[in-house]
């Protein structure tokens, strides 16, 4: 019997016993749905992390000079305590490094904390308040839509002005123009000079709940101890220039900290690679756990199909006997039942692919999780699904093929 006849027969069987077939393909369906959905989420997050997140948080061709890493996978308590004992980055460190770098770069100071911002009797709780220097907006690609950024002059003289995020402006001033008005940060009034373009959300967190004031304005007392910053941000125009700037910065800092050649750095020079390594760690875990869960679902699905097929063989013993008496060889019967279990599983996988895609689209639209369906996962879903069907069908089909036609025909 040709393969396509066997498949046509299998579809007939599927149609005839819709409910039973529906249950039997459930396991494979769930496995493949999960495969597609989970893969598309990891895939989407990957795109997000590499193209957007890392770029936004640290920036392309940019490094941060910090006391300790901002993004770290797992650190031991002792390493953590050692980091905490390191000296902080001081104003003079930042100035010295910025001056000593010979390649063309943009630099900015950054110190942040979560502080409540008030105006007009309204509040934005725990907004990200940053003390920074004037290049901060260029380096971070923050476009000002109303007003202007603060100037180098304002930074040097520590004027209490502020550039606020879109959400802060919306919450405190609703539809009115905030430029020229005042907000209170930790009780001190600042004049709003600009509003930053809407940034949207990342993993459900608003990127628009922030305010940036000049580093030497009164904000410095809120965000850090005196004379200290969180990070010096350095942006070069290419990777090569950035690497050069990093090595220059390292040299200066080691000199300033009087580190001997074998001593470790007591500061970090963090690039977006660091963030990506952090994400890479998470991804590795997902790549182990995800396939594991898919595997469990598919094994269960395979066992269900095998049981259903064993039942089918028992129920259709007489039919098998008849087919054998009419000239079906062992391989014909084997092929018929293999085609049936493979068809059940492939149909399950196909429905799983459709549901998985639907779920991904839904997740992408309804939740902050980014999702992008990978074509590879669709191919893999169908192939693995069908494969599970064939593997699960081998034992029942072999039993069917080995049935003695006389005994099979006698069966009620």
């Amino acid at each position, binding site marked *: *019997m*040709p393969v396509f*006849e066997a498949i046509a027969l299998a579809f*007939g069987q599927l149609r*005839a016993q819709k409910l039973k077939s529906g249950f039997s393909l459930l396991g494979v369906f769930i496995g493949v749905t999960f495969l597609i959905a989970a893969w598309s989420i990891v895939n989407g997050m990957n795109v997000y992390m590499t193209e957007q997140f890392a770029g936004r948080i640290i920036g392309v061709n940019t490094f941060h000079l910090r006391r300790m890493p901002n993004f770290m996978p797992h650190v031991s308590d002792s390493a953590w305590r050692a980091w905490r004992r390191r000296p902080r980055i001081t104003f003079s460190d930042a100035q010295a490094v910025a001056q000593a770098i010979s390649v063309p770069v943009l630099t900015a100071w950054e110190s942040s904390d979560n502080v409540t911002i008030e105006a007009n009797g309204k509040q934005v709780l725990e907004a990200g308040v940053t003390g920074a220097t004037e290049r901060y907006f260029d380096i971070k690609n923050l476009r000002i839509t109303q007003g202007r950024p603060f100037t180098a002059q304002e930074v040097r003289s520590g004027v209490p002005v502020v550039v606020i995020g879109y959400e802060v402006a919306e919450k405190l001033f609703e539809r009115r123009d905030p430029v020229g008005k005042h907000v209170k940060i930790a009780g001190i009034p600042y004049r709003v000079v600009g509003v930053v373009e809407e940034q949207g959300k990342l993993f459900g967190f608003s990127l628009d709940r922030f305010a940036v004031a000049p580093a030497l304005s009164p904000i410095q007392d809120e965000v850090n101890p005196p004379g200290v910053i969180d990070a010096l941000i350095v942006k070069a125009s290419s990777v090569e220039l950035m690497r050069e700037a990093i090595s220059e910065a390292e040299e200066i800092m080691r000199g300033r900290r009087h580190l001997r050649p074998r001593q470790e750095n007591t500061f970090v020079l963090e690039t977006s690679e660091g963030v990506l390594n952090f994400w890479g760690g998470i991804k590795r875990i997902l790549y182990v756990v995800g396939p594991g869960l898919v595997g469990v679902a598919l094994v269960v699905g395979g066992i269900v199909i095998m049981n259903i097929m064993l039942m089918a063989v028992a129920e259709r013993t*007489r*039919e098998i006997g*008849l*087919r*054998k*008496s*009419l*000239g*079906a*060889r*062992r*391989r*014909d019967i084997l092929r018929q039942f293999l085609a049936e279990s493979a068809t059940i599983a492939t149909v399950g996988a196909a429905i799983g692919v459709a549901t998985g895609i639907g779920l991904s689209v839904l997740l992408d639209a309804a939740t902050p999780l980014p999702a992008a369906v990978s074509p590879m996962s669709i191919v893999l879903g169908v192939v693995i699904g069908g494969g599970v069907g064939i593997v699960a069908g081998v034992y029942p089909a072999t039993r069917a093929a080995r049935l003695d*036609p*006389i005994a099979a*025909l006698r069966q009620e």
Partner: protein
Amino acid sequence: MNFRTGDTPHPDVVILAHKLTREYDMGLELVRALRGVSVQIRKNEYVAVMGPSGSGKSTLMNLIGCLDTPTSGEYWLNGQKVSDLRDDELARIRNKEIGFVFQTFNLLPRADALHNVELPLIYAGMSGKARRERAADALERVGLADRMDHKPNELSGGQRQRVAIARGLVNEPSILLADEPTGNLDSTTSAEIMQVFGDLHRMGQTVVMVTHEQDIAAHAARVVTLRDGVVATDQLKAA
């Protein structure tokens, strides 16, 4: 006609059974269902095999139908020695040489008459169009040209058995092998089915029928009676 081991049968002989025995090892005891049966059936004979239950007629039918192989002895079917063939070769012989008709019809309940008749042709490897034509011809021969798209549950008992006969005929087998073909039918329908067998025989078909009913066996030209695993009588009826 005397046949000795080592001979080949006369070309006219379709079925040649020579000292066939079949024993079943039931663990505690050895059941000897056939104790040396020798029968020859020529082309275009119409033979009924009779005998009480336990006489070995079902065992003989299974051997003749190539569903089983003998413990000892030789079985030749249409010039080919089949007593020592393997499983898949037996399947091929069943497909080409034998048309089965069962007491319980054994039709596939979800398939229509045409598809049921097509089944042996599928296993013969025939392609779709030729297959449907041949199956339609066979249904016409048993008078069911207008019932091709009916499912078994839409047909009467007699019609079902005629579909089964068409299925038996469709591969143009050497023998039509019927096992109690009227066992599930009333007497009127039985007569109708026996008429079909009679017609097929007149058109040249070799028919072997296993039955325990005297009046059904009476339709055959020759009656072989088994008792306790051996041939008790083998009578030709005067035509």
